[in-house]
């Protein structure tokens, strides 16, 4: 293994879904601060390189830089350094996940990277993107600019696991473009404390019959701000999308946004924000938005925020389970990993992490 990686805690990385032993993984990319430290693929249907290297090797990929951002008239930040370029070749069916890890180590450092994923026609891939930081990385900032392209009939299952430390601010900016019959599944998990996360990833359904699904599980610790949303823009007929979020505030401030925007008819979409406030000091603000200029759409939303039901706690207590345990069992159940489209091994890992974090903060 790469020497720079020796100093990373394997356990911390596992909490972010990154397995350096590469059991059941088809490719790995690790960037520490500004430097891509490791990248390799174990599967021939894919290429995984630092973005700068990829453009040098395949000049035709230049066209993908900034393309997704301009599709929604969003400013594309060009001052990035590092990041990964993942190519999943036409027709490739990559069963084991591709793992990418973005690691913040320095103090007062600003990591600003550009990632691109290109899933070519008919290809399938699972990506685990683990972001984590060292305890030493105080006052650091992570800005991840990402563009995802899912071509005709492609399938991309993208899981982002944020596993930061209290002193770090994070601003991922990402846009996905999905062509005819393509599917983009985005899972987001953030269970560890962080100072601030602001993100509002968007997905544009560009081709007929394409589909998007965003699911998030967010745990807000005391002193943190998580302003997190998902947006789907419908630009083709017979498209559909679903946005689900489960947020739990144990004292932090959470803003759970969701926006479904139909720019053509024959769209089916649903948005669901469910929040649970566990601590007196917690706050959750759910902002679900539906928007259409057409009549022939089927769009709905559901939002509910509440506290843990006393009746449920007392029910479990009557089985001899003490109140704190009952509470954390219910919270863990609320953050239901079944809503995510995760590979089983990763789901188990997240269950373990959930258990650890909900117990320790009760």
């Amino acid at each position: 293994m790469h020497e720079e990686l020796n100093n990373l805690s394997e356990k911390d990385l596992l909490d972010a879904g990154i397995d350096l032993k590469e059991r059941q993984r088809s490719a790995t990319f690790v960037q520490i601060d500004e430097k891509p430290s490791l990248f390799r693929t174990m599967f021939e249907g894919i290429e995984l390189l630092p973005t700068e290297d990829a453009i040098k090797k395949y000049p035709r990929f230049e066209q993908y830089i900034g393309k997704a951002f301009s599709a929604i008239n969003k400013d594309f930040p060009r001052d990035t350094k590092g990041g990964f370029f993942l190519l999943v070749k036409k027709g490739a069916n990559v069963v084991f996940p591709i793992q990418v890890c973005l690691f913040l180590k320095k103090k007062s450092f600003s990591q600003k990277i550009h990632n691109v994923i290109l899933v070519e026609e008919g290809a399938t891939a699972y990506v685990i993107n683990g972001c984590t930081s060292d305890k030493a990385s105080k006052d650091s900032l992570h800005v991840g600019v990402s563009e995802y392209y899912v071509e005709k009939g492609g399938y991309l299952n993208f899981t982002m696991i944020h596993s930061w430390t209290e002193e770090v601010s994070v601003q991922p900016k990402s846009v996905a473009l999905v062509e005819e019959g393509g599917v983009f599944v985005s899972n987001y998990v953030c269970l560890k404390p962080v100072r601030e996360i602001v993100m509002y990833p968007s997905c544009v359904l560009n081709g007929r019959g394409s589909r998007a699904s965003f699911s998030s599980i967010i745990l807000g610790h005391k002193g943190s701000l998580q302003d997190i949303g998902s947006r789907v823009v419908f630009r083709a007929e017979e498209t559909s999308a679903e946005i689900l979020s489960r947020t739990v505030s144990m004292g932090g401030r959470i803003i759970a946004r969701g926006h479904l925007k139909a720019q053509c008819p024959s769209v089916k979409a649903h948005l669901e924000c469910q929040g649970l406030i566990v601590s007196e000091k917690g706050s959750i603000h759910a902002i679900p938005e539906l928007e259409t200029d057409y009549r022939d759409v089927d769009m709905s939303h559901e939002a509910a925020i509440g506290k843990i039901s006393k009746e449920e706690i007392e029910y479990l207590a009557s089985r001899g389970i003490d109140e704190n345990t009952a509470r954390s069992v219910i919270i863990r159940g609320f953050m239901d990993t079944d809503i995510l489209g995760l590979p089983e091994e990763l789901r188990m890992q997240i269950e373990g992490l959930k258990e650890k974090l909900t117990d320790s903060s009760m």
Partner: protein
Amino acid sequence: MELLHIKDISVTVEGKQILSNIDLSIGKGKVFVLFGPNGSGKSTLMKSIVGISGYNIISGDIIFEGRSLLNLSIDERAKFGIAMMFQHPPKVRGVKLSQLARMLCNDKKKIEKYIELLNLGYLFDRDLNVDFSGGEMKRAELLQIILMRPKLILLDEPESGVDIENISIMGKVLDEYLKESGASCFVISHTGYIIEYVKATDGCLMLDGNLYCVGNPYKLFETIKEYGYEKCKECDIRHA
């Protein structure tokens, strides 16, 4: 030997008095049946024993194995050996029946045995009580209670919503447990089906928050069936 003594308790719910001066004693190994019309306060009595919040005991005491329960939390009472089958258990989304079963009992073999006996295999990975049918809910409740290995089982209408075959299955599981453990049982019943499977030793009638007529449960049930609850109240063998 006495296991539970409900000592002259009065209970209010949301400021309204529901139970008045209830006095009742359940011996070790006994099966005590509580009859009474809808709304008379039967569930209120059981919830007061378990310690559910909102059920305020304004006077009297509840003694279990010589200790007062009144200052104990719900889970402490459960740990002392009291387990209740809820009439209307709440849905607990995200918590699976299997998960709870494992929290209640370390013995995998035992869990498997009761899963099999109570035909709960297909519900094992479902969220607790979420979309369970009436009968499924009662079987899942019985599973949890048996796994807790209590000294006192409180059953709030174990037969309601359960089909004839499942009542027989539940009755047998319960009977076997009571025999092997020597536990006592306090059971609310409208239909009397359950006491065809477990041998009841005592019975009493609750009307309007008052207890009447402690006696032979089978005779009591026959009398209620023949003359109705109100007539039962006038009967001169009134004890309590």
